[in-house]
């Protein structure tokens, strides 16, 4: 028996995991090898010393809270089973249909009105004759209260185009549909300056790329927003507000566009980060790694243009997803992309290790060792882990008949 093999068996022996046949082989080796005997004695002394550590007791209060939570969860589960019992289903279906009908018949015209009024751009309003402008403004103000007629717009085709464009962009920015409601609230102020950036793009002041970023952060017009703006305020205030919006739009056109776009770019980045984190959080919480859908989200995030500063992190997580799904080649190419394109990325050392893991799983041991050695020599933060991996790989090379399973995926 070689010393490297004996060292792994020594650990099993110290913790009583060794099978009798291997136990005898180890004893035979230990009688001949003083180095391994010393290592065994050292490990036994360390393990004995650490067995004296007293283990902390959790407070009884925590047990009580945990049990309460368990009972509550059980109660909720049993109630939801009863609530969704077959005898309720017809009633629930009828109620759902009624709500749908009321929503469509009563609210939809109002939503359309408020959307039209909200999105009327300052430029469009400015193009109107003074009297017409006043009429359009008051129609916009009253539109919601009357609940019916659409305000007359001086340049309907331009406005329709504008609205259509905005809708298209919103559709293109699919990740925004996954964004939490809070994000809409955060961006309410931005939305209050009606379509200023849309106009700016149409008059060629900003590049289409920047517009795309801005539009990605613009929320889809939601009923609560329109209603908050128009239904809760008094008519005079509404009129003032509408005028202020025009002033705000004009100011944006005069040069404040850049500031808003910076904010939009920030929002876009934070959304992209959320898009990255959301699936990971979901997967961790459920304890069932949903790698496929997480990978899909990361792939979507990487398609956004221009690439965010979080792109290397997104790539790294995408690589982890592929790795966990056992798609070693895909994972390897992602890690290689990080190594090649993002030399400054904080986890490029880890990317080397992960690339090595993939190559190892693909049976390319010498290539894997090359990555581990680069990680060890060039990235001090991962040196210890790289050393461990090199040692483990070399050990496996020595004992090919032993376990040569690919790394565990971790899912149960």
């Amino acid at each position: 028996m070689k010393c490297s093999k004996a060292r792994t068996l020594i650990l099993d022996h110290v913790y009583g995991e060794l099978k009798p046949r291997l136990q005898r082989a180890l004893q035979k080796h230990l009688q001949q090898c003083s180095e391994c005997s010393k290592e065994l004695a050292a490990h036994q002394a360390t393990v004995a010393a650490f067995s004296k550590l007293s283990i902390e007791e959790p407070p009884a209060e925590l047990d009580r809270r945990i049990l309460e939570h368990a009972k509550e969860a059980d109660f909720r589960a049993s109630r939801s089973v009863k609530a969704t019992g077959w005898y309720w289903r017809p009633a629930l279906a009828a109620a759902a249909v009624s709500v749908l009908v009321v929503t469509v018949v009563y609210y939809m015209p109002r939503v359309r009105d408020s959307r039209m009024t909200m999105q009327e751009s300052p430029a469009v309003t400015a193009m109107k004759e003074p009297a017409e402008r006043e009429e359009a403004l008051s129609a916009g103000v009253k539109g919601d209260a009357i609940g019916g007629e659409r305000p007359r717009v001086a340049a309907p085709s331009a406005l329709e185009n504008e609205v259509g464009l905005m809708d298209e962009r919103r559709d293109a920015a699919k990740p925004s549909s996954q964004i939490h409601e809070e994000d809409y609230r955060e961006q309410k102020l931005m939305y209050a300056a009606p379509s200023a950036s849309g106009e700016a793009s149409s008059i060629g002041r900003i590049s289409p790329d920047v517009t795309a970023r801005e539009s990605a952060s613009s929320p889809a017009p939601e009923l609560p927003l329109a209603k908050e703006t128009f239904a809760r305020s008094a008519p005079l205030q509404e009129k003032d507000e509408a005028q202020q919006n025009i002033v705000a739009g004009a100011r944006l056109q005069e040069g404040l566009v850049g500031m808003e776009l910076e904010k939009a770019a920030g929002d876009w980045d934070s959304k992209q980060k959320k898009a990255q984190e959301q699936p990971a959080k979901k997967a961790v919480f459920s304890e069932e790694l949903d790698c496929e859908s997480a990978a899909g989200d990361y792939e979507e995030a990487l398609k956004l243009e221009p690439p965010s500063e979080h792109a290397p992190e997104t790539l790294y997580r995408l690589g982890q997803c592929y790795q966990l799904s056992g798609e070693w080649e895909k994972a390897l190419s992602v890690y290689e992309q990080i190594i090649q394109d993002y030399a400054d990325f904080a986890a490029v050392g880890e990317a080397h290790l992960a690339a090595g893991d993939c190559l190892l799983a693909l049976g390319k041991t010498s290539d894997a060792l090359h990555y581990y050695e680069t990680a060890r020599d060039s990235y001090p933060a991962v040196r210890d882990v790289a050393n461990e991996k090199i040692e483990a790989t070399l050990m496996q090379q020595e004992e090919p008949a032993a376990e040569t399973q690919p790394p565990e995926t971790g899912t149960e």
Partner: protein
Amino acid sequence: MDRNIPDEVLMQQYARGDIGAFEELLARHRRPLFGYICRIVDNRELAEDTFQEVFVRLIHSRARYKQTAKFTTWLYKIAHNACVDALRRESYRKADSLSEPKPMGNGEEMRPQDVVPSMNPGPDEVLAHEQLSETLKECISRLSPEQKEVFVLRQYQNLAFKEIARTVGTSESTVKSRMRYALNNLRAMLIERRVLEGVTL
């Protein structure tokens, strides 16, 4: 509840709604699990939060438990994930609170960690056993996160190397390699603190 019923059977009973089975599982695993979390997060308050979080996650995932998995492996996998999350949150929090130097009355600047008293008790305040415990805890806390986790799971949670590999998501040979490094590092620390006598390896 019969103490001889395996954990896996209890977990299945709980998945079907038997709260008594859950109570038994909690009673069996509360202490070792709390000990593991304390070692990994190295902060009592954070450990208490994480301990609760582990059981909350277990409660919500009860329907997904499959008896093919060993209960302890499953439990410690949940605990491993909860600890990783807790440490990540804690590192963000520390980055906010510890990075700003605080001005002192005499014109000097000190960081919060310089003015917060050490958690290590003095020799006159505690018994020798508690002192030793503190020293051992401090040594464990100085290990790298990977080595610490493997060492704690093997030494205190009594998980086999193969189970540890499944829990932390790596190969058994990597786990053993980490364990060997951990034992060597711990031994060096114990010799430095005169808990063990040095023997040249």
